[in-house]
């Protein structure tokens, strides 16, 4: 951290010191993306210390997991990372399936992959859109909501809900895709590619945006590993790590082998490696990669059953399993322990936002208040997940 900021140009000086002021950023503040409080010490405009206070949205997800049946927990998984509910469903289902050792029909895997990737696009749209909002650009946010709206309409058609899908379930998916759905997904991909270029032109390469985010909140690779960061946070620091390729689940091994997608990395193009701009860049590029994965699935999907034969009341064999999947925000881990009964003994959720947020404490001191907002935005947290 020290080396990297020393090389970057800081355009303000610390020659005047005043008494530090404590400012509560949150729990209701436009930049905290939900109800989170950051207790900030500030010397004028310069932040000298920050301490995140969580728990305003704590809903006891893990305790609930120990009290409801395996399948009944599914709707609760929607609710921690509510921007990527499909991925949460997928992570939980995979963990339980690992314990049960069931074979998932191929069509179900395809539909799961399509949904998870579409949801990743939706989540990154929000991440990038609200990041623009934090920086002060209002319009790109609404453009991104427009595409996300279509994505949500697609999900509404396949599962009937727009945000809390509960669609991917243990053993497969709830329903087969309705007729015409897959071709609409293809249309979505076509339109999205066009619009994506607009986001890049409008916000990503905008000089003010670059100036606001480059060289801010630099996370070095060593620091990223030390803090256990994952997802775009670690890829923004130039570490080539993606669970979809490196520890493949579902069909990703096959898709990677087919060369359908690549993994974008932060390169420090506009500033130091691992700054806010790099993280935003990784997210923007990942949307395009997700589109490629969706296209591959659309090309190779074949009719078939969409759910394995599982009993109505699940009894999961005794044992414990940890499954980490690549959520849009990083590694979403589900650690489930079963004693062979109808209810889990432990249902631990390792939320990527929770771990990613921890680094904020370290990045904030020495930045301006406006940068603090940019740093929080670049971690792309969902408070539902940090607090669970």
């Amino acid at each position: 951290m020290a080396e990297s900021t020393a090389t970057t140009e800081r355009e303000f000086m610390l020659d005047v010191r005043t008494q530090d002021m404590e400012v509560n950023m949150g729990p209701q503040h436009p930049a905290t993306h939900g109800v989170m409080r950051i207790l900030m010490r500030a010397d004028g405009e310069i932040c000298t210390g920050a301490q995140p206070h969580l728990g305003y949205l704590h809903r006891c997800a893990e305790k609930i997991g120990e009290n409801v049946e395996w399948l009944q927990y599914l709707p609760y998984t929607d609710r921690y990372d509510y921007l990527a509910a499909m991925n949460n469903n997928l992570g939980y289902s995979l963990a339980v399936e690992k314990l049960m050792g069931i074979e998932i029909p191929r069509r179900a895997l395809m539909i799961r992959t399509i949904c998870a990737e579409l949801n990743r696009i939706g989540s990154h749209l929000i991440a990038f859109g609200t990041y623009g909002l934090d920086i002060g650009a209002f319009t790109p946010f609404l453009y991104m909501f427009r595409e996300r709206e279509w994505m949500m309409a697609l999900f509404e058609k396949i599962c009937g809900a727009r945000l809390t899908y509960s669609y991917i379930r243990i053993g497969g998916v709830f329903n087969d895709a309705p007729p015409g759905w897959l071709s609409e997904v293809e249309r979505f991909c076509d339109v999205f590619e066009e619009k994506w270029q607009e986001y890049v032109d409008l916000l990503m390469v905008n000089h003010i945006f670059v100036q606001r985010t480059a060289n801010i909140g630099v996370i070095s690779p060593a620091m990223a590993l030390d803090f256990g960061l994952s997802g775009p946070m670690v890829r923004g620091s130039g570490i080539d790590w993606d669970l979809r390729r490196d520890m493949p689940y579902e069909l990703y091994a096959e898709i990677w082998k087919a060369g359908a997608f690549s993994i974008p990395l932060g390169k420090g193009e506009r500033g130091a490696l691992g700054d806010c701009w790099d993280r935003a860049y990784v997210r923007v590029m990942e949307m395009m990669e997700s589109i490629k994965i969706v296209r591959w699935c659309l090309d190779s999907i074949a009719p078939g059953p969409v759910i394995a034969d599982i009993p109505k009341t699940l009894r999961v064999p005794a044992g414990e399993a940890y499954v980490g999947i690549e959520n849009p925000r990083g590694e979403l881990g589900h650690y489930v322990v079963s004693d062979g009964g109808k209810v889990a003994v432990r249902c631990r959720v390792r939320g990527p936002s929770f771990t990613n947020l921890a680094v904020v404490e370290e990045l904030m001191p020495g930045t301006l208040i406006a940068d603090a907002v940019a740093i929080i935005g670049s971690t792309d947290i969902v408070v539902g997940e940090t607090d669970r």
Partner: protein
Amino acid sequence: MFTEVLSAAPQSGTNAINDFLAGVKPEFVPAWAVPLTAVGIAVGITIALVSVIAMFSTWLERKVSGHIQCRYGPMRAGWHGWLQPLADGVKLLLKEDLVPVGADRVMYVVAPAIVLASVLAALAAYPLAPGFFFADLDLGIFFILAMTSTTTIGVVMAGWSSNSKWSLYGAMREAAQVVAYEIPLGISLLVPIMVAGSFNLLEVSRGQAGMFGMDWYIWPWVNPFMLPCFVLFFIAILAETKRAPFDLPEAESELVAGFMTEYSGIRWSFFFMEEYAAMYLYSVVGAFFFFGGFESPLTWGAAKVFGDGHVLYHCAAGLTLILKGFAGVFLMMWLRWTLPRVRIDQVMTLGYKYLTPLALACVLGGSLWEVFVAPILPWRNG
């Protein structure tokens, strides 16, 4: 402000209201009552003007932002929501008058009034038409710049008295920003002033009447330094009026709502009235010094058809100015809904390291052009 108008109006002796009142004055009314009544009427008109400008601008802002963002904006009150500002105004008037605990009550209440008064005062120097103005000031542009700068005092008062840290941040940012941008704003206006040879808005406008009302100072053949000057001027007025990308004093994603975090109801709306009126006013200043002021083919045609003193000529000139003013306002809105916000240190850097030196360079170049090149250009001596 009133003394200024009072002393200015009778001296110049061309105030239309004053002339009209003097013409219809009965014998028993003392002579000093005439300018005083004229001032009263002018103040009334100015307040109405500010309200109308602010109302129309809020409507325009919401429609422009809406359509830029692929949505409609207000659609319910009247045709395409044109009555929406009225509905909002009624709502704001009826809202509870809140003063936060611990706030400095007197300052808190006075601050919005000062903010609004500053722009009202500046509007006194704004001619509605070539023959209809409240005060034809020789140093009109100086008066406008001086008056609009006093907004800062109100904003700082508002931020300080609110007893909120976010408000204080907003106020401090506003103070720093306005100080930084007064300089390039003033300097960038020097080139057109040099070309026009006057500080008087009406005279500047009259100087651009040639070429069917299209002989504007912005054209590069008049002075090639005029275009960069206009760009600098435009950036500076964005910062002066706290518009994005320089909306740091209210930066909603950083400072909640900046200096007006604690304000609500009609007091809060005063800040917005000031902002929109100032936007319009600065656009008008830009129109006067770069885009011909009252002059346009429309005005030229009206002058040819009806003659130089006809009411319709004045209407055409006034309409031209209003259109130019709102074109500037529209451009500011378009920019606001396109750009992200800059950071406070970048605002300072831009102001001091980019705009001020560039403005000075433009003034140097412009004055050299005026001294050495302009005299030999045939179209500058016709």
